């Protein structure tokens, strides 16, 4: 993981204005998502342009097939930030703003961070808990970082998001159990054989689900792959694409002594694999177990084969039920994920409070010195007898008084202790002393 050391020189004191605009698979149809997606170059160009126009000081674009999001931090005094970001977003893609009305979400401050952390945790994904988004997030952030588009705030926020994603995947089960029939079949095979590297698989039929299973097997460096189909051409086509070999339908039984994993999804009316065929296959393998995934409807494997010793048979309903159980199990993990997110938001808030409160002392110091000079000027006008040396001494004493008064709060803020959850107090101080008014 990339570790960032924030450049303190870039930390602008004052209130942090963090915002997010974008759309995802829930808010916008694919036709719109296609039009507002960013290539890697476009994402970096957009970040440059946003900074050049002064809309944002820091920017990260996250663009995947299911979402296009722009995260930004504005400088001080920036108002209507999400408005400006949306304006830029739509004009960048040449889309009228009316087209995105109701399809874009806008979040600011804590809500924006909450959204990002949910994205990193996989809670905002089409498939709950999917892990791919974390890699995409890491890439998007890494590119923006290398390009110099991020700053201390987004570095902090995105590092927090990556940490959330990592913790969620290591401490909860939200992403562990298989959520597709194909993956469930392969994961079950791993419960029998352990590592599938070097194992042999036989695929009967060349349908779409079978192809998904083959893809999963290939990802696990399966040793050999054989495809058998009634149409040899289709078998050869799938085998060619997946790096396996094809065999004629007639050779099916002869080929059954080799594979450890058997996936069937052939059409037809009766069973393709009978109990006798599988019994012979196991015997010819010296009793080594066979794992059979029957994806066919009607079933390709004779139901009586389920009782065979060292044969593990799962049909499409079994796998469907497992996927359903897993969905529920993942959903049950959501509160634990939310707790991790809340913990990291609190950490960010604490950091933000320290950073923002730090600026208060500087602002107060400025305000006090301004008042001090005005007061000295007024009062010393009435005291013509005071010599220039004495005037200088009075000025020094009043200056020292202000520094002494502000010394302890400044030190407390520097240490950052006890600042968590005290942002409200900081806001109150700003209001009481009229610090925001004076800046404007």
């Amino acid at each position: 993981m990339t570790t960032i050391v924030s450049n303190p020189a870039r930390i602008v004191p004052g209130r942090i204005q963090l915002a997010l605009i974008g759309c995802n698979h829930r808010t916008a149809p694919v036709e719109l998502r296609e039009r507002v997606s960013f290539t890697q170059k476009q994402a970096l160009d957009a970040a440059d342009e946003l900074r050049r126009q002064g809309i944002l000081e820091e920017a990260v674009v996250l663009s995947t097939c299911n979402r296009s999001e722009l995260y930004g931090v504005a400088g001080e005094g920036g108002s209507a930030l999400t408005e400006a970001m949306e304006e830029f977003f739509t004009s960048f893609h040449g889309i009228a703003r009316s087209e995105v009305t109701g399809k874009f979400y806008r979040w600011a401050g804590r809500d924006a961070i909450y959204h990002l952390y949910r994205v990193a945790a996989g809670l905002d994904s089409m498939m709950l808990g999917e892990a791919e988004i974390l890699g995409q997030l890491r890439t998007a952030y890494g590119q923006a970082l290398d390009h110099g588009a991020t700053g201390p705030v987004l570095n902090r926020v995105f590092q927090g998001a990556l940490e959330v994603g990592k913790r969620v995947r290591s401490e909860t089960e939200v992403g562990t159990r298989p959520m597709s029939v194909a993956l469930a079949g392969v994961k079950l095979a791993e419960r029998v054989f352990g590592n599938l590297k070097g194992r042999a698989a036989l695929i009967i039929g060349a349908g779409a689900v079978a192809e998904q299973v083959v893809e999963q097997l290939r990802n696990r460096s399966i040793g050999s792959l054989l495809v058998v189909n009634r149409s040899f051409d289709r078998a050869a086509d799938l085998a060619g694409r997946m790096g396996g070999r094809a065999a004629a339908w007639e050779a099916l039984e002869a080929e059954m002594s080799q594979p450890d994993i058997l996936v069937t999804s052939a059409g037809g009316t009766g069973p393709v694999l009978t109990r006798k065929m599988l019994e012979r296959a196991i015997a010819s393998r010296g009793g080594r177990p066979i794992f059979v995934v029957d994806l066919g409807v009607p079933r390709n494997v004779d139901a009586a084969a389920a009782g065979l010793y060292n044969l593990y048979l799962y049909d499409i309903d079994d796998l469907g039920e497992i996927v359903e159980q897993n969905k529920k199990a993942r959903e049950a993990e959501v509160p634990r994920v939310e707790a991790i997110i809340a913990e990291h938001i609190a950490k960010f808030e604490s950091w933000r409070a320290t950073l923002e409160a730090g600026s208060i002392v500087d602002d107060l110091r400025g305000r006090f010195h301004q008042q001090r000079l005005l007061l000295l000027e007024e009062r010393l006008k009435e005291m013509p007898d005071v010599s220039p040396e004495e005037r200088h001494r009075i000025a020094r004493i009043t200056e020292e008084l202000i520094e002494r008064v502000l010394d302890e709060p400044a030190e407390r803020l520097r240490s950052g202790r006890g600042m968590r959850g005290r942002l409200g107090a900081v806001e109150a101080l700003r209001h009481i002393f009229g610090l925001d008014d004076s800046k404007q």
Partner: protein
Amino acid sequence: MTHQLGYLSLLFYAASFACYVRILYVPNAWLGRIASVLLAGGIVFQYYDLLERSRFTHSVPYDDLYGSMSLFAWLFAITYLVLEIFHRQHTVGAFVTLLLIAWVGGLRLLVPMQPQAPPPARGALFALHVTLITWGYAAFALSFVLSLVYLVQDRLLRSRRLNSAFWRFPALDVLDQMARSSVYLGLVLVALGVPMGLVWAHRLSGGYAWGDPKVVVTGLILVVYVAYLRLSRSAQWRGSRAALLCALNFVIVLFSYTFVNLYLTRFHRFF
């Protein structure tokens, strides 16, 4: 001092158990390493506990029930740790450490800890014989645990009732390999330990006592475990049948360790 060391080792085993249980529900490589380190810590403290005892009795702890059982538990823990490192599997740790805690904790609660009196001096060969045989039995005990886990995993796979722990259990193939490794180790240790005992007995009495029930049952143990190793690679037995055989074999080990020692043998009756 020995009391504190014993309790400290129990504490480490308990902490290790907590980590292993957590791994079953939440995968975490670091937690696995911590569990192994805690288990190793428990082993170290138990070693010093046994050492204290050995200093008092001037012998390997075999003569009293507490010392003998404690030595067994210690060697059981070592065997598991070695296999865990060799096979890089932490998911069986919860079952093994649970057994370890029950064993060690039960001993402390139920069996008098102080040895009555030092046994007669029997020499280094005898000490080595006792240690190797006990270690061999501990390895068989581990294969028993692994075979039970195999049978549970196999049943879950066949019933299709897959709870959350199921996805964390080791694969059947891994369990089979670990159980076989454990049996191999047990066989080697017992095969080395038996001749040492025979030689020691010959030196003492001039005979080999082939007919003693302890020797006969130990021979039977060697035969049934060799049979397991052969059958577990045959077409008819490979898989759950072999796991069941391995688990049943351990019943003979228990029989040898308890009933034979207490009631049948002439010269293995120590406590």
